[in-house]
């Protein structure tokens, strides 16, 4: 998958789960994995840090 920020290659984890956070190894931007209609994974932007995110 291509990073929309830097065009780097983001590897798809072998055991990928929908909703998983993946990070571009080149620029460090994080994305959320989601399944397209054809069942294949793609990435989309996520909220970087929500005000109520955490433990």
């Amino acid at each position: 998958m291509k990073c929309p920020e830097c065009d780097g290659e983001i590897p798809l984890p072998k055991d990928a789960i929908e909703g998983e956070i993946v990070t571009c190894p080149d620029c460090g931007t994080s994305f959320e994995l989601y399944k397209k209609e054809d069942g294949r994974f793609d990435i989309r932007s996520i909220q970087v840090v929500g005000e109520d995110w955490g433990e």
Partner: protein
Amino acid sequence: MVYDYVRWEEKVIADAAKKKGVDLKLVDSKDVSLLLDNDYEKEFGDVVLQRCLSYFRSLHLTATLEAKGVSVVNNFNVAVVAGNKLFTTLALLKAGIPTPQTVLSFAPESALKSLEKLGYPAVLKPTIGSWGRLVALLKDRDSAEAIFEDREHMFPLYQIYYIQEFVKRPPRDIRSIVIDDRVVAAIYRISPSGNWKTNMALGAKAENCPITKELEDICARASKAVGGGILGVDCMESPDGLLVHEVNNTTEFKNTVPATGVDIPGLIIDYLVKLRK
């Protein structure tokens, strides 16, 4: 397991379930559509592990599932108390557990008066929040006034002035993972150079911490005080002994597993199986 984003923790919990032959269904809370008249007990199984990253999402979903007869870990009352630093402090004080001295005010003027009682430096924390976000060191009256002025322009949650003494401690604190009122693993979280905070999200280093009788005892009491379940209890080593300063409701353990070698995800699954109806 309900979630909104899958972190390392959620992945290893799912892996642990698979290894143990436990049927763990993953439910993305962002896809949930609940008609509140309906019954959801069968759909959500015997027990739900709440792992949403968003506190408000998790709290509202837990409330709804529990009202529909679904068991949730952690339960709603625990999520309310452990998800709010003030409510946690009140629960700890009620149970007689040592915790940093805390003052509460609702306006900058009264917060400054509270600080005269508490003394400087002190620590201003949002009652809801994580990862050290917006936690501010109030070094003196000038810095307190400047920070309070900023808070007055923020969401009303940040105008609850929950302020704690700055405890004299080594540049570290202790994070204990507590399951069913028992400490299963503990780490020192060592502040990164030049930072007084000990949050892993801010670059703190994790090292195994021996589980002493004192640590075991205070963490078990803190767990019981907020209602039990799966918790991350944070302690500071004060000159007078351990103090509990936080209890985390949806604890992360990404750094605790490699530092301690403890199979925390496996222990979480074992606990959920034990709770199964």
